[in-house]
């Protein structure tokens, strides 16, 4: 580089003209603005939601609303507890029924299945995620629920000594069938993430188990499942988040009982169902209560999803030190994203 002095006002030989730099600048600032927009939007919506919900919190208090036992529209008394419990019951049912089947499917696909079948099997399970929730609701109410009534009645009668399971008449919208449909809906997510984690098990460990004289199942039990534990739990939690936030299928299948259903095979209510059913005609305090329900729903799914992602990230880094893996690179979390919360 020569050191000849440059007359002021002229550009350095290697510098670009301001005009040439304009597209770069515009792009950079434009995109940064977009990214900031996302932040602003979410914060804005959150605060507006809180604002709309505040009248009911003023009247009943946050705890009063959350733990109130009666959702009584007529009397302007809004206790969200039956809604919250309904949401939790159906989601718990979904987990109980869906996760074992999903994990088993993932184990089969990764460890036991003949290679040629692996692709088609994966596609079929993933297809479950493509069915929109309203179609699940449709199929549930017209096909599944009526067909299950005899079996449900049998269970209710035989197990009537267990509280909440037995002892009554089975109705068509009920907690159980809602939970069952939700289980089917979360199957693809949990299966995809479980599959993904299982394929990352280093073959070292599997070979060590086999070389020690383990049967196939024993190998899965000591080398695959423990390694995948936190990933599978993370996947299950993502499924939980989906189940909690699911609206339409639940609305169709759970009924609209303002109180806690007497037992598993009776109608109940859930946070999302209440909003879907009542918002259209709600006024004033009622509407504020529904906004509050949405807020509770929002916070719940937020918490569950945050924990889930933490677990999935931790598991994809494995229990050994290694290059940290960006969890969003996995196709499974991609599937989870495209199917999350309807």
């Amino acid at each position, binding site marked *: 580089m020569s050191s000849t002095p440059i007359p002021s006002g002229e550009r350095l030989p290697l510098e670009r003209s301001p005009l040439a730099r304009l597209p770069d600048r515009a792009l950079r600032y434009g995109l940064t603005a977009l990214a900031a927009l996302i932040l602003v939007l979410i914060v804005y919506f959150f605060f507006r939601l809180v604002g709309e919900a505040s009248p009911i919190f003023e009247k009943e208090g946050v705890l009063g609303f959350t733990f109130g036992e009666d959702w009584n529209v007529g009397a302007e008394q809004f206790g969200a507890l039956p809604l919250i419990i309904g949401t939790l019951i159906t989601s718990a049912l979904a987990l109980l029924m869906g996760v074992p089947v999903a994990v088993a*499917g993932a184990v089969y696909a990764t460890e036991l299945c003949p290679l040629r079948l692996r692709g088609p099997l994966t596609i079929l399970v993933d*297809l479950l995620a493509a069915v929109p929730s309203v179609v699940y609701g449709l199929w549930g109410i017209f096909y599944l629920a009526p067909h299950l009534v005899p079996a449900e009645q049998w269970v209710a009668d035989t197990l009537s000594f267990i509280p909440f399971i037995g002892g009554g008449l089975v109705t068509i919208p009920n907690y159980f069938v809602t939970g069952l449909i939700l289980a089917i809906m979360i199957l693809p997510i949990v299966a995809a993430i479980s599959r993904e984690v299982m394929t990352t098990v280093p073959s070292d460990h599997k070979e060590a188990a086999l070389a020690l004289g383990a049967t196939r199942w024993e190998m899965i039990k000591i080398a695959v499942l423990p390694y995948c534990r936190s990933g599978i739990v993370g996947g299950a939690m993502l499924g939980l988040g989906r189940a909690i936030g699911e609206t339409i299928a639940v609305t169709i299948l759970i009924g609209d009982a303002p109180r806690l259903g007497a037992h598993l095979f009776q109608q109940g209510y859930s946070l*999302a169902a209440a909003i879907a059913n009542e918002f259209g005609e709600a006024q004033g305090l009622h509407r504020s209560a529904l906004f509050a329900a949405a807020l509770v729903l929002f916070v719940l799914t937020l918490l569950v999803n945050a924990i889930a992602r933490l677990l999935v990230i931790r598991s994809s880094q494995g229990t050994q030190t290694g290059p940290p893996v960006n969890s969003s690179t996995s196709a499974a979390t991609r599937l989870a994203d495209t199917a999350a919360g309807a």
Partner: protein
Amino acid sequence: MSPQAPPSDHLARFAVSPARRRKDRFARIAIQIATLIALVPLLLIVYYLLSKGLSSWSTDFFTTDPTGNTFFKNSNIGGIKSALLGTIEMVAAASLIAVPVGIGVAVWLVEYGRTSWFAQTVRFFVDVLTGVPSIVFGLFIYIALIVGTGSSYAGYKGALALTLLMLPVVIRSAEVVLMLVPSGLRESALALGAPRWKVIFSIVIPTALPGMVTGVLLAIARAAGETAPLLFTAGATLKTNFNLSEYMNSLPVQIYSDVTSPTASVEQRAWGSALALVVMILLLNLVARLVSRRSRIA
């Protein structure tokens, strides 16, 4: 080879006990059964959709609006024209916004923000968006655009709710694909003296394009199937209209309202609409898969 003792004696002390063998077999069978159970619902749904839905398909079905005469058994209930068109309009409008914005944010995250705290915050918020229940998206738009403004439901408001829903999906999938573009590609272009924006538009985005298209198609498929965000934004109506600032019908909302009707012919129509919706979504998924096969990086 004729040893004195039968050969199996040597391995006798290493033999697998019958109990272990039983457990192994039992576990494998249980796993296989569970996998079959996982496939049953899909098959049943497909069967029902086809057997009950196909019979309601006809030209009239797709070219007439629903009439709303759903109370009497033999009345003409119409078809699903407005619902179909409404879905297409609103999803298209939503995509027009969500795709550029989503890809723009993804490009920013990968090319400019990278690991800065601001970028991490944005990623966190995108994560938050992913988990929001879809009905809450509808409520967000309701609060922003309907409460206090005196205006009511409109097609574009429904489209906006769908935009919110699509955004995180587009952003995440685009981010993933953009990160897979080898940094060597960018570096060699930059080393040749190309300005940043050119590298992004001529090299990075084209390389990532198939993957991004896949992500976009999947987001569109998801948005097409959503009901809840549209309930309190676009409202529901029977007539076809192309004016996004009026009430607009949509397939999922139509199905939803048909589900609650007691008339048998309406139920029939619901199945037909459901079949149409599922076919649409499956086609989008199929195209997405085909496109992703052409990708050189993902």
